[in-house]
């Protein structure tokens, strides 16, 4: 299932609409990196509001995604992690260490804007 990637100025926004299979996630990761390179984006927001579960694979893929995007000189923010999902993640010992997180799309954009205005 294809995740739509929208361009908003210097940033890309990928909004996940429903549960993704492992291959969907990997596909998203590749697509985002390609788009960052092609459009020379400065930041990527991945909106995971619709994900009702973030297991070890999803966590690992998101971390890899952020790392790969950073190697291309852009920043990643994960937004919309649900309270229950956050709790399960920390209880399972899954961390998104090193990856920026924000409450929602609005906060994610604010974070990226600040980062690129002053950073």
């Amino acid at each position, binding site marked *: 299932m294809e995740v739509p990637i929208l361009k908003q100025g210097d940033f890309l926004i990928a909004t996940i609409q429903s549960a993704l*299979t492992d291959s969907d996630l990997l596909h998203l990761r590749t697509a985002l990196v390609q788009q960052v390179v092609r459009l020379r984006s400065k930041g990527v927001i991945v909106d995971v509001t619709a994900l009702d579960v973030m297991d070890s694979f999803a966590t690992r893929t998101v971390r890899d995604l952020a790392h790969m995007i950073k190697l291309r000189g852009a920043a990643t923010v994960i937004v919309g992690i649900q309270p229950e999902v956050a709790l*399960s993640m920390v209880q*399972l010992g899954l961390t998104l260490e090193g990856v920026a997180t924000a409450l929602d799309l609005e906060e994610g954009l604010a974070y990226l804007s600040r980062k690129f205005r002053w950073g």
Partner: protein
Amino acid sequence: MGQAPSEDGIRLPLDSEADIVAARQKGRLLAAEIGLSASELTVVATVISELARNIVLYAQRGQITVRLMERDGRRGIMVTASDEGPGIPDISRAVQDGYSTSGGLGLGLPGVRRLMDEFAIESVVGRGTTVTVTKWGR
């Protein structure tokens, strides 16, 4: 993907990674019948996801059974993940806290064990593995 009722539960075959999502969604629906909170439901769904992924990754195929339980007036949900894969050589190490899965490598079993109320694992090298976990509600 077919599912068959088994006592008070459902059987979910796992043949590929695409079955993982369906397994955890169906498991979550069943778990919702015993009055777990939203957080607890997410925990159950996440645990099913982890166990299902282990099966697909290491044994290629297997099945997950989700059953409703009852004991002393409390209802619970039991998840059994079984496969006929290679088995786990050193079980005690695999379930030891701190040994694996910081970041999701390995089997995630310590995390699963921490999250569920009951945890049992049987594994024979060359024959397969069965993990049984239970979460109790109110």
